[in-house]
């Protein structure tokens, strides 16, 4: 009996030891290795304040911000350890000590002041965003006070976006802006090594990174592979470890190779059909509403697939979204009635402008064309090359279009809703409303989130009831990675890979 008990205990101990060994290998990050990231392009400028970004994000790996969003979309400290907001015009940041830039210079209040001045200069592509800052005062070596021109509640959101990266003052002052575009210097976990004219970008581990235990990787290499199918094949062949934006048809295959992660999952980007509300026929709200009633968005979404349904300008996950807003019911009979009331009882013909860069919107357009055909609307789909299409959208030379917008990478609801502000750069629909304008003006002036939420709920209601758009949803895109790549997380905006957390388990 005693012997049996002893044997049982020994066996259990062996099992426990084996399990913990196996689990430990899986759970414990390993140091070393180079992540080979297949990107669709490499930016010409690596300066985050002047990168003419074209949607590319590889350059941000070398930089950090004062604060950032965590996965729960709450602010968390990075280069600033804390901040006080004594009144609506004043922000005081307490900076992290002991942080070095890749060139050995120290991060401090003077560097922050320099960065704000540069962001407000003509050189910066974010000059308009940072014009809200009146003054940056150095209180001591690690404390800055920022005074705004007027109250601006999304100020922290601005600093947490890709506009808020902090660069080395020493590097710019010693070498100049042009040099900096090809030799980025930040405080990030990886420092710039080389930019190859042939399409590779190499960053090596920063040994003096302030988070002593990170990064796990020795290096990150960005490789330009423009074709998405080739990116998948390279992943499958083991020639790259991470592939940006893979074809949806290859999702099952890539899931077998390793894993996938949705691009923009946390962001605010929504796709929609857009009306030009400033000229006939869509200056008549009845026509816009008729179109919205005639397009069964649920069915359209299920045909296209891989789409996160949305019902308004703010995604469901955004704190500013009004939960009472429902999707427009599919009602072709009512749609026909509205068209007749608007003087189009015999139907009408419209041009739907699509950009060649958006093949999934072309699919959506074809489905919409069929659905609108049932209420007597003839849709001519005009597929134009992107630059031409954008020019026509900007000049108002279109009737009906298909676009997407994400608040410029901002999480704050003001980012998406500001699209409907009079004179807003991307307000191609031309839809505005005086009450809406007042609500948006108030929304950025008050800092209490609950109060702002009420304003934005009302604002979203006005927008959805005005039908400037038909919201299709969020067309999901995916990145793929091999099975030995772990710790894959994207930043809250959804597009930037958090390379500091990634580790490789292959030898």
């Amino acid at each position, binding site marked *: 009996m005693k012997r049996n008990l002893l044997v049982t205990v020994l066996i259990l101990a062996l099992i426990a030891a084996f399990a913990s060994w196996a689990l430990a290998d899986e759970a414990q990050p390993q140091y070393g290795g180079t992540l080979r990231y297949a990107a669709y392009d490499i930016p010409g400028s690596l300066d985050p304040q002047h990168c003419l970004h074209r949607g590319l994000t590889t350059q941000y790996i070398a930089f950090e911000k004062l604060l950032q969003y965590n996965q729960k979309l709450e602010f968390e400290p990075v280069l600033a350890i804390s901040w006080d907001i004594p009144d609506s015009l004043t922000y005081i940041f307490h900076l992290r000590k002991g942080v070095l830039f890749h060139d050995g210079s120290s991060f401090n209040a003077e560097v922050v002041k320099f960065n704000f001045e540069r962001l407000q200069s003509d050189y910066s*592509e974010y000059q*308009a965003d940072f014009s809200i800052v009146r003054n940056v005062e150095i209180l001591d070596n690690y404390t800055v006070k920022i005074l705004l021109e007027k109250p601006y509640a999304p100020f922290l959101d601005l600093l947490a976006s890709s506009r808020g990266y902090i660069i080395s003052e020493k590097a710019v002052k010693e070498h100049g802006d042009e040099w900096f575009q090809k030799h980025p210097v930040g405080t990030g976990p990886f420092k710039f090594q080389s930019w190859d004219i042939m399409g590779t970008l190499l960053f090596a581990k920063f040994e003096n990174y302030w988070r002593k235990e990170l990064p796990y990787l020795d290096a990150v290499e960005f*490789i*330009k592979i423009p074709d998405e199918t080739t990116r998948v094949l390279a992943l499958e062949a083991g020639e790259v470890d991470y592939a940006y934006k893979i074809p949806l048809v290859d999702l099952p295959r890539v899931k077998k190779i390793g894993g996938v992660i949705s691009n923009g999952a946390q962001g605010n980007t929504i796709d929609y059909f857009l009306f030009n509300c400033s000229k006939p026929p869509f200056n008549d709200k009845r026509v816009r509403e008729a179109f919205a009633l005639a397009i069964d968005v649920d069915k359209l979404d299920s045909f296209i697939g891989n789409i996160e349904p949305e019902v308004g300008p703010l995604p469901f996950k955004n704190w500013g979204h009004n939960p009472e807003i429902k999707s427009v019911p599919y009602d072709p009979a009512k749609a026909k009635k509205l068209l007749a009331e608007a003087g189009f009882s015999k139907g009408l013909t419209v041009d739907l402008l699509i950009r060649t860069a958006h093949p999934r919107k072309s699919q959506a357009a074809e489905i919409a064309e069929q659905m609108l055909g049932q209420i007597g609307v003839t849709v001519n789909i005009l597929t134009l090359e992107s*630059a*031409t299409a954008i020019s026509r959208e900007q000049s108002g030379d279109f009737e009906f279009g298909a*676009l997407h917008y994400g608040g410029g990478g901002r999480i704050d609801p003001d980012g998406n809703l500001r699209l409907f502000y009079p004179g807003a750069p991307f307000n191609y629909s031309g839809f505005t409303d005086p009450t809406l304008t007042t609500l948006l003006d108030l929304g950025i002036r008050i800092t209490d989130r609950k109060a702002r939420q009420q304003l934005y709920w009302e604002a979203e209601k006005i927008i959805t009831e005005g039908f400037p758009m038909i919201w299709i949803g969020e067309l999901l895109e995916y990145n793929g990675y091999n099975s030995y790549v772990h710790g894959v997380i994207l930043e809250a905006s959804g597009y930037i890979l958090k390379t500091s957390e990634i580790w490789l388990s292959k030898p």
Partner: protein
Amino acid sequence: MISYIIRRCLQLIPVLVGISLLVFLMVHLLPGDPAIAIVGPEVTPDQIRQVREEYHLDDPWLVQYLIWMKMILRGDFGVSIVENVPISKLLLARLPVTLQLTGFAMIISLLISIPAGVVSAVKKDTLSDNIARVFAFAGICIPNFWLGIMLILIFGVLFPILPVYGYVSPIHNFPEALRHLLLPSITLGTALAALVTRMTRSCLLEVLACDYVTVARAKGLPEHVVIYKHALRNAMIPVITVVGLQFGFLLGGSVLVETVFALPGIGKLVVDSIFFRDYPVVQGVVLCYALVFSLVNLLVDVLYGFLDPRIRY
């Protein structure tokens, strides 16, 4: 011959000036604001203003053209708006990639197609002829981007013996360079191989029916001497013409192959530059293409003299 070559080179100058004006006008007539094309759809007025000021996009087109021509005459092609590097540097780095791809594609296709065409003509209406003709037909019909992806799938993934993407300079590692160029060159050269096979077959059949070939055979010459020394040389003249003209199509066709295989050549560069309205790059690359194409045609004309002693300049 030397004076002929010099005359042809001098004739290039007005050709290149004409092409430069034509391409300048064409890219500037493209609809769409270049600032929007460069930055992207979510471009702010600040960014538009910056790009337009920085690159003199608001100057009159004649002023822009004259500034550019003045720079070209000094050997300065300007700076790429998108890549933010001197265009001459881009061309020096990337043109060799495209030329290697195109050259290697041409060599592979000629090595396959000429023997195939000869066999097809000599063994007319046999199994060998039928196989060669089916290959030629398939080669012309198959889209080269699909072929490229299939080759990657087979030789890069299923039987991983060749790399899936990328370029290695032959100066750094010649064997690796060949490995990286093999699949793209086969992809690019297949259509040319198909065309040259058919041309060689039909030209050789025509020549083999000539009287002097009958005389050569009647004299008792071995068949391989009749074919390779007497018939093939004469059959090659129209084939060389077609190959020379096809070089231009190969240069253009390199765009898709460079995209699929992620080769950093100028084909993909020029197409991206058109979409991003990177005018200086488009102008510089098209001028380069014109120069390369003109030199290849000159080479073809000179080759005639070697193939046919009756042709003298």
